[in-house]
C-alpha cells in the first residue's frame, strides 16, 4: 500500500516513539537487573512473599514499568490504524469499482 506523506510521517513518528519507549524500558530493566541503574527498593511484603530475588525484580519493575505502561497504552492506537486502514482499503476498492 502506498502512503501519502502526512500518513507516512505520522507512522514514522509513531514507530520512532514506540522504538524509543521500548528501548528505554529495555535499558532500565537490564540496568536494574545488572545493578547499574538506580534501584528502587522493593517493599518488605514483596521480599517476604517472593524471597531474596524480589529486590532485583521489584527494582526492575519500578524502573521500567512507567515506560512499559506508556508504550502499551499507546499501542492501542494500532487498533485505530487497522480500523482506518480497513476503511481506506474499502474506499479504494469502491473507487476502483466505479472506474
Amino acid at each position, binding site marked *: 500500500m502506498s502512503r501519502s506523506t502526512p500518513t507516512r510521517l505520522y507512522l*514514522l513518528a509513531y514507530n520512532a516513539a514506540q522504538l524509543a519507549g521500548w528501548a528505554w524500558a529495555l535499558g532500565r530493566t537490564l540496568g536494574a537487573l545488572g545493578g547499574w541503574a538506580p534501584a528502587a527498593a522493593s517493599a518488605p511484603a514483596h521480599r517476604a512473599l517472593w524471597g531474596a530475588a524480589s529486590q532485583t525484580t521489584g527494582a526492575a519493575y519500578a524502573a521500567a514499568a512507567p515506560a512499559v505502561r506508556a508504550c502499551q497504552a499507546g499501542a492501542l492506537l494500532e*487498533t485505530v490504524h487497522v480500523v482506518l486502514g480497513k476503511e481506506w482499503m474499502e474506499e479504494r476498492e469502491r473507487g476502483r469499482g466505479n472506474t
Partner: protein
Amino acid sequence: MMGARAHHHSPSPTSLSSLSPGLVPGSPALAFLQWFGRSNVLFLILGSIPELRAHWAVAPLFVAWAAADVARYAWYAAALARPSSPPPAWLTWLRYSAFIPLYPAGIFAGEMPLIAAGLPLIEARGLHSLALPNRLNWGFSYAAFCRLGLYVLLPTAFIVLYRYLLSQRVKRLGCGGRRGGSGRREA
C-alpha cells in the same frame, strides 16, 4: 496474555497484542485482542496486584517484550524513513529472528507464571469480578477468565502464532532463514 504482535498483518514476537500501523489492512478485532492480551497482564494483573511486581517473572516479561518491540519498531521505522529502499538486511534478519527465543520467553517465563501466581490473589480478592446476585443478574469471574487464558487460550495462541511467525520468517528470509531478507516491503 497471548503472544505475538501483528503489524502490517504479520504477528511479531511476544504477545498477541497489536497490529501496527500502516493505516494498514487487517482485522480490527484481532488487533484489539492482541493488544488486550498484553494489557491484561500489565494493567489488570500487575497493575492491581502490587505483590506480583516483585515476582521473578517480571524481569523476563519486560526483557522479552521490550527486546522484541525494539527489533520490530526499528524495522518499521527504517522502512518508513526510506520508502524507496528496503530496511537493512541485518535489521530484517533481526526482526524475523528475534521472536524465536523472545516469544516463548515472554509467554512461558513471563506471562504464564505471572497469571498463575496471581490467580489465588485474584480469587481471594474477587478482582475485576462481578458477583451474583446483582441488579444486572449477570456474574463474571475474572479468575475463571484468567484460568481459561492460562490453560487454553495462551497455549493455543502460542502454537498457532509461533508456527505462523516461523512461516513468515521462511517467506521473508528464505529457506533456513540465512538469507538477509528479500527487501520486499509488506505494505
